[in-house]
């Protein structure tokens, strides 16, 4: 039993939960979004700052469970400083991992600490928790890009 729980609550996840990286809302930003998980009420306000095709900053304020908080922290680590295209493909990779029901082997090269979420994929009800901030990031990034285009 504890083994099953441990596969979900990896040390890395609990560490990020206790000490989230990049937390707080910062300037500058081109887009701010607010996403909610309607089933449980978890919320995130997230800002994206893009420049020269690179994710310069992701800042956020959020309330939620260990999985959603840790996932936000890991996401910020992964995308900040990356070209938008590369960040998007990391997003795709994380999404595929989460939707794979535990059958997808995570690539540590790409996902780094994100591989700790492999266990979450086996808990369908928690997948939404892990994806909340990623979806918010994708949404905000798309808006930032529109902003800069339009």
């Amino acid at each position, binding site marked *: 039993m504890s083994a099953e729980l441990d596969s979900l609550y990896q040390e890395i996840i609990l560490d990020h939960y206790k000490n989230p990286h990049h937390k707080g809302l910062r300037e500058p930003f081109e887009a701010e979004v607010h996403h*909610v998980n*309607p*089933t*449980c009420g978890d919320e995130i306000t997230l800002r994206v700052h893009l420049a020269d095709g690179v994710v310069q900053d992701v800042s956020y304020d959020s309330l939620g469970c260990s999985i959603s908080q840790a996932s936000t922290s890991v996401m910020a680590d992964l995308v900040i400083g990356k070209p938008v295209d590369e960040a998007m493909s990391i997003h795709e990779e994380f999404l595929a991992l989460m939707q794979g029901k535990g059958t997808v082997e995570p690539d540590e090269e790409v996902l780094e600490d994100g591989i700790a979420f492999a266990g979450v994929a086996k*808990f*369908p*009800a*928690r997948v939404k928790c892990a994806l909340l901030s990623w979806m918010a990031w994708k949404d905000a990034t798309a808006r930032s890009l529109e902003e800069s285009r339009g």
Partner: protein
Amino acid sequence: MKGLLPDLEVIRKDFPILERTLADGRPLVYLDSANTSQKPQCVIDAMVDHLEHHNANVARAMHQLGAEASEAFEAGRDKVAAFIGAPSRDEVIFTKNASEALNLVANTLLWAGPRRVGEGDVVVTTEMEHHSNIVPWQMLAERSGAELKWFTFTDEGHLDLSQVDELITERTKVVTLTWVSNMLGTINPIAEITRRAHEVGALVVVDASQAAPQLPIDLGAMPEAERPDLIAFTGHKVVGPTGIGVLWGSREVLEQLPPFLGGGEMIETVRMEGSTYAGIPHKFEAGTPPIVEAVGLGAAVDYLGAVGMEAIHAHEQAITRYALEGMQSVKGLRVLGPLDATQRGGAVSFEIEGLHPHDVSQVLDVRGVAVRAGHHCARPAHARFGVQSSTRMSSYLYTTPAEIDAFVDALNYTRSYFKLD
């Protein structure tokens, strides 16, 4: 007989009710499938298994049972989406029946949004609709100030398409019609009318309650110009349970419509001062959805899919052709609707001179033959023929030629019982 399902006897074994006997030990000859279909064992078993082993509320419950129930429920949505070839599974909304699905559309069109129907607009329906596709539009017209107009139909039971230019104009905001008539059996030219309606920017709402059980439907394969914007059908007519209906709508249109009922599951955030709403499909599914019903409906459309909708359609045509022949041999009998089996669905309404439909169905019932008598929720279509009611026989994938023989025999017996010759 050509076109019959090859495994008809095997299929009949799937439907436990077909084995029961009625008063006097008479076998059941069920010819009322347009009213509601019978259920195969696999549908019943899927529901029982769900209730005995996986029952929990969906979406909101995060425990193991909740995950199982949610998965079973959403699998029902996937199966329905596959059954009608829906471009996206999120476009499938579960309602309580076809009537609610049609009301959902008529109701939300009253409120703010790009599709809003108001004063001076025209809503077009037809004279051959089921009441469930007339009354909601009457209510919309009354509440919005829009005008309700309708196609009439010919003596042979076909829509009078010469009215198209007069009815479908720049003022027309909605065109709604049945795909297959539940009274006349007529199959309407959905693609053609949809194309015309789309040309003027009107929304097309199709009542597929009688089409879904009988015709292969592949929305994804239809050219967009000819694809209806919304279609409705009902679980209990496609060998599924009562308590569930389906509204399919294109994502674009569903996103344009405001929410219908308010409550749990359809919200994003609720504050006392105001609320925001979830995306589709949940936006239109307030409250606990029909969970065990979605499980049953999923099993039902899987069953129909396994038999094959093309094969079911061919079977219906063969049986209907045979029935039409048999009925025309009965003196004084007049069929209300097309006589060509290839142009119609399997519901055949008729009258017999000198006999009231109640009395016909009563005598048939005593002989174990279950048909429907009345206006079949299509009073305007009856009025069009100057009659108040009719008798209707309707077959389905489990109907045999021998049952049609029993039906025709019973009609002749009825005439003799009432001493008509």
